[in-house]
């Protein structure tokens, strides 16, 4: 299915925003302005954007510890995200969540999740809500290859099938869960085949290719919106950096690391649209420039922002108590 020029620009904007945001996170982390851990999404941009491209604010996603890309793809504002990740007042979660707990209910972003396998059951419930209300909205659970071995994820797959909920399981297989290769940790020859054995259609696509992910996602959406129950998409991705910013990655050979970069989804998108003369280089460059500026400004503003008021420590534990 051919995308319009505006759609292509929107896709590139989203992908590049993730790229620029995460590179900035890498830098800020090194500078010590981001507390805790940071798991960045560099190299996986095409997966998140391809999956979220046709979703609306009423469609919901559940995310992972590596959630920045999903947030941006789903429409969260990077200004609020920087504030959040730096633990500042005005962050999307008031500074109480941090990188691994960004959520934005208004955008249908049900939360990053620092528990591997935490999101899939929750997404089943979000999909159940849509089914019971009779809408044509869907829920998506993002998981990694590592998360595919967590019992909660596996339970959610079976549950989604038997409740026939409009839900898509997206497994972003970047080859590693922390420092352990999926080659080792996933006993099955293929993640998507294993998912299929739970009783739903499943596809495996090149997660570095926005167009492949998007096309598969359209099929998935058509399936689940037709009331046929859940669907699984495995996107094979490259993780540019280590598990977290600062991971020296000795467990990956130099060749493999180089190979990961060679498969750059941003570059591949650029090549594709310029070769096919769908967009001009200058248009892409302009998008990049705008985003860079916005990211710079957002990061600077976040660095300068105050910490949350101490009174907020004990607020919002309950609606009432």
């Amino acid at each position: 299915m051919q995308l319009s020029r505006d759609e292509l620009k929107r896709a590139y904007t989203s992908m590049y925003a993730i790229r620029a945001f995460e590179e900035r996170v890498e830098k800020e982390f090194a500078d010590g302005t981001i507390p805790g851990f940071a798991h960045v999404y560099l190299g996986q941009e095409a997966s998140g954007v391809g999956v979220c491209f046709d979703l609306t604010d009423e469609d919901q996603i559940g995310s992972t510890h590596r959630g920045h890309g999903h947030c941006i793809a789903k429409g969260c504002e990077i200004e609020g995200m920087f504030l959040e990740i730096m633990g500042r007042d005005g962050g999307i979660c008031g500074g109480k969540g941090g990188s691994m707990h960004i959520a934005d209910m208004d955008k249908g972003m049900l939360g990053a999740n620092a528990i591997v396998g935490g999101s899939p059951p929750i997404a089943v419930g979000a999909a159940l809500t849509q089914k019971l209300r009779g809408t044509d909205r869907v829920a998506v659970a993002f998981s990694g290859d590592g998360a595919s071995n967590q019992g909660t994820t596996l339970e959610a797959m079976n549950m989604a099938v038997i409740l026939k909920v409009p839900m898509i399981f997206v497994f972003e297989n970047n080859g590693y869960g922390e420092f352990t290769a999926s080659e080792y940790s996933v006993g099955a020859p293929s993640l998507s085949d294993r998912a299929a054995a739970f009783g739903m259609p499943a596809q495996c696509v090149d997660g570095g290719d926005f167009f492949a992910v998007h096309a598969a996602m359209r099929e998935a959406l058509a399936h689940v919106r037709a009331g046929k129950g859940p669907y699984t998409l495995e996107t094979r991705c490259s993780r540019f950096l280590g598990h977290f910013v600062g991971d020296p990655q000795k467990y990956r050979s130099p060749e493999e690391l180089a190979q990961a970069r060679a498969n750059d989804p941003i570059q591949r998108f650029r090549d594709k649209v310029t070769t096919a003369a769908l967009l001009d280089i200058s248009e892409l460059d302009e998008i990049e420039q705008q985003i860079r500026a916005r990211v710079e400004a957002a990061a600077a503003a976040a660095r300068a922002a105050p910490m949350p008021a101490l009174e907020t420590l004990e607020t919002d534990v309950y609606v009432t108590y």
Partner: protein
Amino acid sequence: MARISYRKAVNQALDQEMTRDASVILMGIDVGGGSGGSGDVGSVGGVMGVTKGLYPKYGPNRVIDTPISESAIIGAAAGAAVTGMRPVAELMFVDFIGVCLDQIYNQAAKFRYMFGGKARTPLVIRTMGGAGMRAGAQHSQNLHPILTMIPGLKVVMPSNPYDAKGLLIRAIRDDDPVVFLESKALYDMKGEVPEEAYEIPFGEANFLRDGGDATIVAFGAMVPRAMQAADRLAKDGIRVTVIDPRTTSPLDEEAILDSVDETGRLVVVDESPPRCSLAADVAALVASQAFDALKAPVGMVTCPHTPVPFAPNLEDAYMPSAEKIEAAVRKTL
């Protein structure tokens, strides 16, 4: 007013709330029962018959049989709650929280705080606990201390049919995640229960008896035992106040502290092993906030630091009894 069982009171609360509000749904293992079978679907209504009749009345979209996948059950209920439904998920025995605790304590209970106040998770987890049914070590625990310590969660332990109905209606209407811990030993207990819907607020203790000699605080199935102990003591002219906090989180601290201010003596009865128990929790509350009123060591009547044994004589010895409660009160005098 009709006299109905604790089981029926829970059923009635569910029924009335489901009629009132279409977003209330039930989900869990066999809450309907019989799904996929060749016979009568919905004929069971929960392993204890608590949800009986609701599947025939509300159908499979609102009374949802699930696989034996508690993480998916609780997680899906949390996900449905945070997107606008009011699910009542059943965790058949509270002993099973070990396979789904993450979805309770790291997910549902923390959404609101982690997300800066932007999430609302009106989830009720109905479950049952307690020993005395000869169900063995993995089907007889209470585990309310684990639940009570979790910030973001509310925990209810009804001790009689009237409270069961009013507290469950309150729980369903509440906008926070609530664990509603039913006592399997009390399901057949009967009591007067109004036909119409009513709410009992959380964090408000029930004073079952007033007496100036000592204060007994008891929870759930221990409340009737505390009352028995009070009766025995009354025969010797010893008058005790018996407090049933009804919810362990929030806890009506004021009620407890005020009473101890008057009586100066406290016995806490808690059906759980002693370490980090609710008995310890209440004892510590009083030792830190009503110390000056205290005239005697705080008494705690709990189970021993052992799993629940199977043999009936051991199980009986395991539990706090009216005799033990009575003795503990006498010790404080």
